[in-house]
């Protein structure tokens, strides 16, 4: 305080960390940030194409949940695709959660998804004669192992020699992309296409079966099981507690008798395995093919999801849905108003900017210079 007194002039705004904030307030700030972002987007869209922003927002909703016609049904194709993509993003984010909670920067989800996808595709191609249940067991085990293996290497190096895991996992992505190119060339069908094409289009071996007649219900079931499981694991298990202790302070963890190396390797194996499983969901449950675009940047988007949700797997559902909604909505307006997809990226960018900005106001408060204090 003595130091403040020596200053003649106090700055106009000071920033101080908030101790805590009631839940309703933090929710309000976040909702306001989204509304404000939509307003800014609206103004920009209006300046660009002179279309009523409300119409544009309606198109965005229609893009994600289907066109509003008289015979509108909520569970139409577009809604299901939005759900499917939300589940995909959620699955990856759930996979990243334990690693990030441990302050282990797993930037390698892209690669882990790809190798999981390769493993799944390999099972679909070579083991398609197996009975369906057995085939699914093979695909799940193979994708889990592939993802785990892909994260094991950076984990061992981190635990033993304290290498930088950010760079290591990032570089593993490029190895995985090259590996995928190799398998695409190996499995390309038809020859000369440089694509694998849809695997087993006739018998649909290894495709997620419809549940209750719904094509993507299986994706929801698989991902929800993992999401709930991860929530319990992180919050109520001893291992989950160890993860948060190691994340907060490795020295504390060591003092408390936690085997830090073991925790790092174990957590990374789990993280990689679930990311590998996302590859299984992507290949078997959605695309039924494999290409270098199978991960398509979702491994990076999922990092945003995991962070914004503060590793709470249930909050992740909402954030994933929001991001997928923005993506679908932006694609729809690009198509409807004959804009190219840069507009889509712009809108998503603006909204993310505001959401991230709102975190600042949730965590800090601004103290304006008041008259009385200014006289000091």
């Amino acid at each position, binding site marked *: 305080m003595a130091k403040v007194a020596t200053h003649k002039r106090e700055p106009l705004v000071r920033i101080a960390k908030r101790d805590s904030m009631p839940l309703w307030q933090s929710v309000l700030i976040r909702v306001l940030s989204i509304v404000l972002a939509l307003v800014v987007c609206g103004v920009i869209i209006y300046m660009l194409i002179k279309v009523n922003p409300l119409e544009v927002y309606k198109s965005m909703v229609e893009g994600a949940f289907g066109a509003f016609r008289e015979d509108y049904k909520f569970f139409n194709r577009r809604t299901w695709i939005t759900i499917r993509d939300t589940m995909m993003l959620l699955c990856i984010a759930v996979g990243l959660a334990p690693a990030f909670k441990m302050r282990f920067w797993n930037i390698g989800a892209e690669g882990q998804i790809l190798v999981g996808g390769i493993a799944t595709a390999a099972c679909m191609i070579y083991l398609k004669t197996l009975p369906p249940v057995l085939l699914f067991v093979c695909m799940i085990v193979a994708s889990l192992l592939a993802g785990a293996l892909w994260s094991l290497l950076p984990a061992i190096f981190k635990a033993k020699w304290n290498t930088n895991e950010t760079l290591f996992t990032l570089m593993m992505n490029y190895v995985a992309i090259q590996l995928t190119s190799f398998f695409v060339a190996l499995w390309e069908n038809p020859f000369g*296409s440089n694509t694998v094409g849809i695997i087993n289009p006739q018998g649909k071996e290894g495709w997620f079966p419809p549940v209750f007649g719904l094509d993507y219900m299986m994706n929801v079931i698989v991902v929800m099981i993992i999401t709930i499981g991860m929530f319990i694991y992180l919050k109520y298990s001893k291992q989950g507690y160890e993860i948060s202790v190691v994340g907060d302070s490795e020295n504390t963890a060591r003092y408390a008798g936690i085997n830090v190396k073991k925790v790092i390797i174990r957590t990374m194996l789990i993280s990689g395995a679930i990311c590998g499983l996302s590859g299984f969901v992507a290949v078997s449950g959605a695309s039924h093919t494999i290409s270098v675009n199978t991960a398509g940047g979702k491994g990076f988007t999922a990092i945003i999801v995991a962070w914004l949700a503060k590793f709470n797997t249930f909050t992740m559902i909402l954030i994933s849905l929001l991001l997928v909604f923005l993506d679908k909505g932006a694609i729809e307006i690009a198509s409807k108003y004959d804009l190219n997809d840069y507009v889509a990226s712009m809108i998503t960018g603006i909204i993310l900017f505001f959401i991230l900005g709102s975190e600042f106001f949730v965590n800090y408060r601004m103290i304006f210079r008041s008259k009385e204090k200014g006289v000091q």
Partner: protein
Amino acid sequence: MKKLIALILAILMVASLAACGGTDTATKDEAGKADASSDFKMGVILIGDENEGYTYAHIQGIKDAAKSLGLADDQIIWKYTIPEDETCYDTAADLADQGCDLVVSNSYGHQSHMQQAATEFPEVTFIAMTGDTAKASGLPNFCNAFTAVYESRFVSGVVAGMKIKELVDAGKLEDDNFDADGNVKVGYVGAYPYAEVKSGYTAFFLGIKSVYDKVSMSVQFTNSWFDLTKEGETANQLLSQGCVIICQHADSTGAPSAVQAALEKGDVCYSVGYNIDMLEVAPQAALTSATNVWSVYYTEAIGAAMKGEAVPTNWAEGYAKDAVAITPLGESCAEGTQEKVDEVIAAIKAGELHVFDTETFTVGGKKVESAFATDTDGDFVPDADEAVFDGYFHESYFQSAPCFALDIDGITLLN
């Protein structure tokens, strides 16, 4: 303080919404003007957008076709930058849901996803451009189309041949421009070692030989469909080996730019491009480019679909319907090239000249008597549909996609 911020935010929101609300009536009016003369609707799935040469050509082709068929803007739904994965199927199915009668995709990799949609929506026609599985699929509502671009590749070869002849006659070539047997060296920047590419460079090579016989060609593959830098580097490699003409499979400006740079340094070398006019990047080096005129096909296919008629399962037309062309000749072209080109085109149109005439090339020193066009058992080796009859290989005859995959004498594959 918090209340103040909240208040400001609230006012800002209300104000901006109110400001925007005012324009509501204007946009509604415009939508009301929609052409109700036809309830035909089509969807277009594109791998890129107008910033990418290949897709731009398709967009222009469809727009020209729409104009001549009297199709209104809101009868076409455009979907840009659709990747070659389930997004393509999702988009195709969504377009069908929106009531499209015809859905077109422009990239080869879209094909299997389009086919999946075609099985599910039998009342909608799906066209996978440049694809090759429509016939085998047995689906009446699934089609492929490709231009007979080998014809314009051949004609662009004629242009190159005229230039080589001029250079040889004027004695402008040096020793390293000839190989050991005295053939003039030609270089080709290939994409992948696949039929489409082989058919293209072989047609180009035969075009040169139809004018000047003593040539040999080296082909270097980039293993990419579009790579500006790599194509430029490959062109430079071929130039350093003494190639006089550099042609290319892909439509990037990489190779023409490299050739232009070498020409400015004093080398004797010229470029033949693909798809787009290269004169802008290589004003002196570019001779011409072989191109597709997509509007010919789109007018035919969309027109048929509008009338409720069947769209041909496999469509492949060339000069006969003016579905292929070469771009305007560059200033460096040899004297009399235009006349020669017109003569060759007329002969192709009249059916007197066949690009893959078996009299004009040999494989392993022998004339080709038999070659299959279609692969039926999935081992990637053609085993059905005899394509050699009436004295020439029938390219794009059994299916629209190119299938000529013979390695003829005089062409060396470098990788």
